[in-house]
């Protein structure tokens, strides 16, 4: 009997803000793959449960099957996108043994045998109570790492990179063009580019364009149709999405699709969402002067990251002006504009120019117009769903702006 695979968001996603404000949790990239990709390796047909307001936009990018009757493996959409989990998921589906695998305060995975009725209308809020009520035996040995907080995307990056990039490089479409360097179709590499793949493979996906005098240190991945600007230095554990522009120095960072960091400046141990533009000279710090553990502020709490290196997290659609300097461990919301020194977290939809004495709200209208202009440059048509999503997130984040001491004037 076929086994269903359901990726589910749960009630704990607020802590992953701002990363998951505008995308399903399974669409967070890490080392060339997101969890949806990993799930597809295990099962050709998957379905998912996401927050209602994301359902339409998710369906445009991530095909979903209607769950049929029969046994079902529920996998938390916040599971770290580690390709090693694909085999584990396949085995669990084949074994067919009921189990519940809790991790921390969340359910990471659960297997419901055939005959367990699935209530209609399961939501991100109701799925965990439903699974707990099923009274399944606790899994003794199964474990899935979960992303609870945004900084953990970077914390897990180095752990998953070696196996993820090894699998990516092994895909049939890539040819080894230099020792340890794998290129897809229509990849342009100048003679002046320097590759060091001793520490891990370098994978350049279809249509990647490399300009002169660039330096690459593996392991790293550059997604389809992305461009690496001349004199750029892209270093180990970096994963660049599709249709991005990369310049300056990038190290141990994730850049989601359609984002630009095309000029000089340092980006390290950072997660950059989609449709982000970092102006020339934008840099972030990823190490404290004391070399101590980085502690961050997040949603009213102080959290020890356990990391010596951690840069910043920037939500989708945010922009930085020239020479913006982002201090260590800062969390920037969705659709905000940064100017000068960013010494504190920035809520979503903010014009943050504290160095110049101004912190104001970025209006929804301004955000929508900016999105439309940016989309047009990449031949993407702004849809009603795009506008609805921005509107919804603008409303959802209203409180964080009014509560923030950073916003004296609205």
């Amino acid at each position, binding site marked *: 009997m076929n086994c269903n695979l359901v990726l589910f968001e749960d009630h704990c996603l607020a802590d992953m803000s701002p990363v998951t404000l505008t995308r399903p949790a399974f669409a967070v990239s890490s080392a060339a793959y997101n969890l949806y990709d990993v799930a597809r390796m295990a099962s050709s047909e998957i379905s998912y449960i996401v927050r209602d307001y994301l359902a339409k936009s998710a369906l445009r990018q991530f095909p979903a099957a209607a769950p049929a009757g029969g046994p079902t493996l529920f996998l938390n959409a916040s599971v770290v996108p580690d390709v090693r989990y694909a085999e584990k998921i396949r085995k669990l589906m084949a074994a067919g043994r009921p189990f*519940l695998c*809790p*991790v*921390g*305060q*969340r*359910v990471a995975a659960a297997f419901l045998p055939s005959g367990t009725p699935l209530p209609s209308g399961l939501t991100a809020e109701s799925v*965990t*109570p*439903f699974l*707990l*009520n099923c*009274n399944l035996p*606790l899994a003794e040995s199964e474990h899935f790492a979960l992303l609870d907080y945004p900084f953990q995307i970077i914390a897990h990056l180095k752990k998953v990179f070696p196996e993820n990039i090894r699998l990516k490089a092994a895909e049939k479409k890539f040819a080894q063009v230099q020792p340890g360097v794998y290129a897809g179709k229509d990849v342009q590499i100048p003679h002046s580019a320097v590759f060091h793949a001793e520490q891990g493979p370098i994978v350049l996906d279809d249509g990647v364009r490399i300009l002169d005098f660039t330096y690459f240190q593996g392991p790293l991945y550059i997604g389809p149709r992305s461009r690496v600007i001349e004199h750029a230095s892209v270093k180990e554990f970096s994963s660049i999405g599709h249709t991005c522009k990369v310049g300056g120095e990038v190290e141990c960072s994730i850049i989601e699709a359609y984002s630009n960091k095309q000029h000089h400046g340092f980006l390290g141990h950072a997660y950059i969402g989609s449709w982000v533009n970092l102006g020339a000279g934008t840099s972030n710090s990823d190490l404290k002067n004391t070399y101590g553990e980085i502690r961050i502020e997040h949603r009213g709490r102080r959290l020890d990251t356990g990391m010596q290196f951690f840069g910043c997290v920037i939500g989708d659609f945010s922009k930085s002006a020239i020479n913006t300097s982002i201090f260590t461990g800062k969390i920037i919301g969705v659709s905000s504009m940064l100017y000068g020194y960013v010494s504190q977290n920035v809520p979503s939809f903010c014009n943050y120019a504290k160095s110049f004495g101004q912190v104001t709200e970025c209006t929804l209208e301004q955000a929508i117009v900016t999105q439309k202009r940016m989309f047009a440059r990449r031949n993407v048509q702004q849809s009603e769903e795009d506008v609805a999503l921005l509107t919804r997130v603008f409303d959802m984040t209203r409180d964080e702006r009014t509560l923030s001491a950073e916003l004296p004037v609205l």
Partner: protein
Amino acid sequence: MCGIFGYVGPRTSGALLLESLARLEYRGYDSWGVALGGAQGLQVRRQAGRIGDFRSEESPSSGGWGGIAHTRWATHGAPTESNAHPHLDCSGEIAVVHNGIIENFSVLKRKLESQGHKFRSETDTEVIPHLIEEMLKSQPDFQTAFVDALKLIEGTYGLAVISARHPGTLFVARHGSPMVLGLGKGEMMVASDPAALVAHTRRVVYMGDGEVATLTAGGHHTQSLDAIPVTHEVQQIAFDLPSIERGGHPHFMHKEIFEQPETIHNAFRGRMVHSEATARLGGLDDKLLRKVKKCHILACGTSWHAALVGKYLLENMARMPTEVSYAAEFRYANPVVEPGTLVIAISQSGETADTLAGVREATLRGATAIGICNVVGSSIARECGQGVYIHAGPEIGVASTKAFTGQLAVLSLLALHLGRMRGMSLRDGLQFMQAIEKLPEQVAETLKCDDSIKELARLYGDANNFLYVGRLYEYPVALEGALKLKEISYIHAEGIPAAELKHGPIALVDPQMPTVVLAAQSGILPKMMGNLQEIHARGGRIIAIAREGDTEIPRIAEHTLFIPPTLDPLVPILAVVPLQLLAYHIAVRRGCDVDRPRNLAKSVTVE
């Protein structure tokens, strides 16, 4: 734990019902009530307190065809007249008496209220007549409406129902709470306990779970909830009345020890919230619990031993700083009560004078108090205003047994609830819940060692002294085992932390000093093995309590009693059972009055 008697036939009278009900009064006694069916409909009389008189003028003047009666031991709602059974529907035409607990009564009550039903009591039972009344709106057949209502109920019940519109018929149901049909000549009876039937008939039918029965003067019909007829063998009651009251056990203490699988189940029934991997304790305010910085448990005697286990539970599982005090010491010690202190008062009866005074002292100094009691509406429960009942039913044996394990079960739930509030992982919460849910079955398994313990009593009944040793969660069990032996067999016994042996008490060890060693926790087993060796090397005779499957301990101990494996924090609930039985059998062997030991009172209501 309450009592039910129902009758249908020509001898219908209030006096007959009350006389039969009085046979059940030993089971519970905080309120009572009777409903009689006659030509003018139903006549109902309810009262708080012990069973009183039913004046002849209150019996139906004519056409009396049957009735139901109930003696209550409160679980939901205080022991008041309005909470006493029988409970009626809005029209006053359906009367219900009930034993058991309706777990989903809050949900049902809200729904029925939204449909216009008016409730008059705080009980869970009252939803039943209203539910039947609601079902009758779409289903004119009473029996079918009754069964439809039962299908909506979650929990346990033994039910007897009469309806003014259905004279001459008594409707009965059983699920998890015993009901026995009494077969008379031209009359039929039902009771929750054969003790109420013996004066009328010795021919009985024991109903099974999930069955309903209709009784008329001419006979009875029994079927499943799915309308499949069920036939039971008619049995003859052969016991004498006192023996029936003790459920066939030689003493109330023995009966209460053997009731523990059920009473522990009652302590957690309806309180587990699987969807959140926590416990919900309806009597506690979560807003208050979130502000608590420290717990201070006050108790006396056996309850104090439960409190010590509670300290380990709260500190280990909820990381909650916890102190334990003898209530009498606390009240006279000019205690420091820091802001944010939650005082937990533990008392079976809820009337323990010192504990009550301790609560008053603590609240005067700014603490918030909650009670863990067995008796609903007792002084401590009222003084605290909030708390958790253990639902163990009346404990008659002076030496507390089932109340102790009930207290431990409730403290475990409290630790789980606080733990989940304070960062306990989902996995740990679920593991703990699953382990708690296994306890009734594991206690039943443990009770199978009764015969072996009887033999131990023969071997050790003449000893003059006993030592009990244990570590961590088993240390309070050692104290409790020693107390049980002292209070009912009058043998001197001491409970000590095992590590303290070498600081003095080991000097007492010799072949005449039996030592009971509690070694069923997995976490500190190597340390306990060391203690066993120390005692063994000095010629001590060891009775060990070990975890099933342990092969090392029987090599050293002279006798080993096994308990099923569980999580260490729950070991006390299982480990105390063999110690209760050991004390009991030794006391019986020495000819002691087990249920009424000398110099002791069940409830210490004096300072």
